[in-house]
């Protein structure tokens, strides 16, 4: 867990209660909403906002919504620069940058159609191990299929 940039000082936001996802790589906000299955009307978006650290960023505010650990990991997989903070009375708490764990269990599907984790009704959770961080490369613990950073998005 680490903090970057403006996440350190209190930031005023539009939503009263909920979650602020800041420093999202430009263009990823809509994908994040889709993956989090965020409900329309409970979302405030700012797209292509100029930013010192990552040039331009997207910002996502989720009203009355708090992210589970696996949802935070999904956000980090979509945008490694994203910071997540809890909002109370229009004030966002410290931004938390999510570290992608070494093992990703039940986070994303395996792209290999022959993989046992894709077999219908089989009681098995997908499981990947990080084998490289920059660029991100993960390996299916069942079939050994290697998935590259750019392929992860469509598997969430």
């Amino acid at each position, binding site marked *: 867990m680490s903090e970057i940039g403006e996440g350190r000082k209190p930031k005023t936001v539009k939503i009263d209660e909920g979650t602020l996802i800041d420093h999202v790589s430009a263009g990823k906000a809509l994908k994040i909403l889709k993956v989090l299955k965020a409900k329309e009307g409970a979302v405030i978006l700012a797209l292509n906002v100029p930013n010192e650290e990552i040039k331009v960023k997207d910002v996502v505010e989720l009203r009355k919504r708090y992210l589970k650990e696996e949802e935070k990991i999904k956000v980090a997989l979509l945008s490694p620069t994203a910071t997540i903070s809890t909002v109370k009375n229009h004030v966002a708490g410290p931004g938390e940058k999510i570290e992608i764990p070494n093992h990703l269990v039940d986070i994303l599907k395996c792209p290999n159609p*022959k993989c046992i984790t894709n077999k219908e*009704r*089989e009681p098995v959770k997908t499981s990947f191990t990080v084998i490289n961080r920059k660029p991100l490369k993960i390996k299916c613990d*069942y079939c050994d299929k290697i998935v590259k950073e750019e392929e992860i998005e469509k598997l969430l």
Partner: protein
Amino acid sequence: MTLKGRDIISFFDFSREEVEYLFRRADELESLRRGETLNVANGKIVAVIFFEPSTRTRLSFTMAVKRLGGDVLDFGEVQRTSVAKGETLADTIKMIDGYKVDLIVLRHPSEGASKLAAEFAEAPVINAGDGSREHPTQTLLDLYTIWREFKHIDNLNIGIMGDLKYGRTPSSLSYGLSLFSNVKIYYIAPEILQIREEVLEMVERKIRYEKIEKLQDAINELDVLYVTRIQKERLPNPEEYEKLKGLYTVTPSSLEGCKENLIVMHPLPRVTELSPEVDSTKHARYFQQAVNGMVIRAALIKEILGLEG
């Protein structure tokens, strides 16, 4: 060193020390080669569950268990039984495991099936093939055949010839050889069937290799020549197949200039890539390979079950 109770899912589960330990234990089972049956596995029951046909592997495991004096619970043609009724692998495994078998040998078309089985079974599981990946006892028997001949694998020059791109053996053998030091592999194949980059990426820091098109260019260097089949359906057209078939057929004359103690291996069954005239040369080892498979499997089963004697 103990392998007692271990699941054998991938060849990478073994260390070099464990592999060599198994080779020595297999050499102690010399009497199995004379057709003797040991009584070390009396009362032990091994479930052999094959979800896809592979007669040779199944026979080899069955013989290994029987030669140790154990019993086999053969699940039969699974396609015709429970799977047709839509049973999950997890359920099949739980059911078999409920009988308190001592070991499960599994072959299944889905990749990673044996890892799943191992999670549900109390009994140890040996992967006898899942999907297109290597299966560990095949690699073990190939390496054992080489080791048995030279009593070491370090420093050997190994030629692997045929369909290196789509064949299962060339990649798994490469991974297996990468456990040892100073091995050089000659990949002998036409450009279109050459070994895949992802295989080279995994082994290149551990072995030396050279890709060549003609056996003649390396025959005098080789300690082992591993021949594999070129499959017609892998090639763009029948003319190409006919041309390559001829170029990649091993005969006694293509072995001219080879080292005295070169051994020729082949996973069998063969078609035309290895002429029967090679059988009577001192180099042929492919029929021993099959026997070695039974013996090394027996050694492995004996270790997993923790059997004495």
